[in-house]
């Protein structure tokens, strides 16, 4: 009995991490840094770009989180229809809907050196962790040869230690949602000022990955950074970041945002916006379909995140990349599948049929897409201005330091300066992790 209890504790612990974004959308995570700081990976296997041209015949397995949109099943079916006659097949394996569980499932397979997932749909924040454990093929030759095909920002999410570890698959970025008749968001300051007159802005302020994204969107726009260029120390406690946090904190104090946002994740912010009491909502692209119904049908607008007055613009990237397991028996075929996933036809289907953000720019100019996806131009703009969260093997600790302290500041328990100072020292000790 007592032993059993102990085991229960240990096994409880064998659960996992939350990625940015809602579990309901399953695709709203975000991440990366252009600097790719703080670590080096050597000795990983590199896959030549030509490996996909005529790989050994066979079947690869594509592992992904629960296919709530149907995009994965569609892509696998299309792949088999196109290449089945040549002897190339793909299987679909679905993991649970929770990002934590997907990460755990993949980690368990990699720790067992199992090739049972040839291609894995990896949340954009997992790149540094997986690659530093040498679980992934280095895909630098393929990515550098094809870089011009992709929107630039998502490439940052697969960039770590000077190499590329995956192929972009789907992306995501946040919008400011507002109703017809309200001012088009121009600057964050203006959004907060207008929000005060129209009930307020709701966003995700609970202490979890989502808040890291919400805060970094403002901080990056204000010109702030999280890590130094070499990735070795924190630069979170900067005047720019303090300014961004002060705007958020004073927004709550002065009634531009309800105090309750400090407990909101995506579903709560959606419900709050649905009450009609709030003028603005910050959420991922999936929220368009959620709110473009009922009284708001046709009156909902989505705007790319605005400028921070006196500085620039930013978004935080979500989405998934196709990564190839270092234990795959047929990595060439795996790359062929990842390449197929990123092809214009599949990307067009992803945005048109499954409301996912495509990672190649041409799709956004496609007449069919422009007709069916009213927010396509704004989405392309949001992705173009996007930045990645820090790519670091200790990212979970970095994010935790950010969201717990930012939440403390939002709830008024500490000042913005004190919060960032504490987060700064916590990130520095996280970077010193063995």
């Amino acid at each position, binding site marked *: 009995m007592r032993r059993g*209890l102990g085991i229960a504790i240990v096994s409880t612990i064998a659960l996992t991490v939350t990625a940015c974004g809602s579990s309901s959308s399953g695709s709203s995570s975000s991440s990366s840094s252009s600097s790719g700081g703080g670590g080096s990976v050597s000795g990983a296997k590199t896959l030549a770009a030509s490996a996909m041209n005529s790989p050994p015949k066979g079947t690869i397995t594509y592992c992904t989180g629960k296919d709530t949109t149907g995009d994965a099943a569609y892509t696998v079916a299309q792949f088999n229809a196109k290449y089945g006659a040549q002897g190339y097949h793909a299987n679909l394996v679905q993991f649970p809907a929770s990002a934590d569980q997907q990460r755990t499932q993949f980690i368990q397979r990699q720790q067992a050196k199992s090739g049972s997932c040839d291609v894995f749909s990896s949340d954009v924040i997992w790149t540094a962790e997986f690659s530093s454990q040498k679980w992934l093929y280095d895909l630098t030759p393929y990515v550098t040869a094809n870089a011009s095909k992709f929107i630039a920002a998502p490439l940052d999410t697969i960039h770590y230690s000077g190499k590329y570890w995956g192929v972009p698959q789907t992306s995501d970025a946040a919008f400011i949602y507002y109703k017809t008749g309200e001012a088009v968001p121009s600057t964050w300051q203006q959004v907060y000022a207008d929000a005060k007159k129209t009930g307020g802005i709701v966003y995700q302020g609970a202490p979890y990955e989502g808040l890291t994204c919400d805060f970094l969107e403002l901080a990056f726009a204000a010109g702030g950074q999280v890590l130094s260029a070499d990735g070795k120390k924190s630069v979170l406690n900067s005047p720019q970041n303090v300014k961004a946090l002060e705007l958020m904190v004073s927004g709550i104090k002065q009634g531009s945002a309800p105090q309750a946002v400090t407990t909101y994740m995506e579903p709560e912010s959606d419900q709050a916006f649905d009450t009609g009491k709030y003028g603005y909502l910050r959420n991922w692209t999936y929220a368009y379909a959620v709110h473009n119904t009922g009284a708001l049908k046709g009156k909902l607008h989505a705007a790319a995140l605005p400028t921070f007055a006196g500085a620039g613009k930013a978004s935080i990237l979500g989405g998934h990349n196709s990564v190839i397991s270092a234990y795959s028996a047929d990595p060439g075929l795996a790359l062929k599948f990842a390449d197929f996933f990123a092809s214009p036809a599949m990307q067009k289907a992803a945005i048109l049929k499954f409301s996912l953000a495509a990672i190649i720019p041409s799709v956004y100019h496609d007449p069919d897409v422009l007709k069916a996806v009213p927010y396509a131009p704004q989405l392309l703009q949001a992705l173009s201005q996007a930045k990645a969260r820090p790519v670091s093997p200790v990212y979970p600790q970095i994010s935790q330091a950010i969201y717990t302290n930012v939440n403390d500041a939002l709830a008024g328990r500490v000042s913005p300066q004190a919060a960032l100072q504490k987060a700064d020292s916590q990130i520095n000790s996280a970077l010193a992790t*063995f």
Partner: protein
Amino acid sequence: MATVANQAGAPAPTRRRSRSLSEKRLAVLMVSPSMILIALVAAWPIIYAIWLSLHQYSVRVAGLSRWVGADNYTSAVSSPDWRSALYHTIIFTVISVTLETMIGLGMALAMHRAFRGQGLLRTVVLVPWAVLTVVTAVMWRTMFVSPYGFINTILGTHTVWLGQEPYALIIIILADVWKTSPFIALLLLAGLQVIPDDIYEAAKVDGATAWQRFVRITLPLLKPAILVALIFRTLDALRIFDLPYVLTQGTVGTSTLSTIAQQTFATNRLYGQGAAMAILAFIIVMLVSFGYIRFVGGNIRGMTAE
């Protein structure tokens, strides 16, 4: 287990040596499959967790680890985060188990009465216990979400229940009490049903009031059942994880021994430190259960001997 060993061991000295030896061998033979099973499923994971807790595993270099001895334990015990998790866990355990026992006893007494609709009442009372804890947590989160949750609507307030101390912990305690009082009620109901009616009748004949019958008959005879319920609930409460995880992600004064260990082990992938925290929780649970058996378990034996 201890009593079984006593019974088996007691007759041995009176028997002849050779026979007792072969019997012992037979006993070993018959017990060994289950012992091996226990070793595999229970002992091995614990030993492995202890092994993990004495090392640190690099999060940046694949496969790199180093022996750190008791460092993970000392750093956990001296960390303010772990200490406040311990503090929250103790507060949660003491308050929730006390409330659950009192409410559960009341429910059991109500369910014990014979009346029309008794079956229905028993079923209804058990519903919260049948609900998954995670579902309970989501329900309570919806109720208390601010500002449009129905609690705020009823009270006409805009309180951010889950965003400030001590409300967040209070709501977690309430949710736990709501969910597990029926479990205690069920255990106590079973205890009530084995108390013979003639004792009550004899007391009535002697002129005992209802209160006297409750205090002098029901409570003492129910004590073993209450103690079993207390042990179950206390050990469970010390491991509380799902409610704070869903309701507040273990923040705003609701971190517990399990949430902080999970955060460290799984989220931050600090396997050594996380395992040390899990072992510390394990030790605390062990100590509490030893305490119960020592002080309370003796009581149970004493009462059954009477």
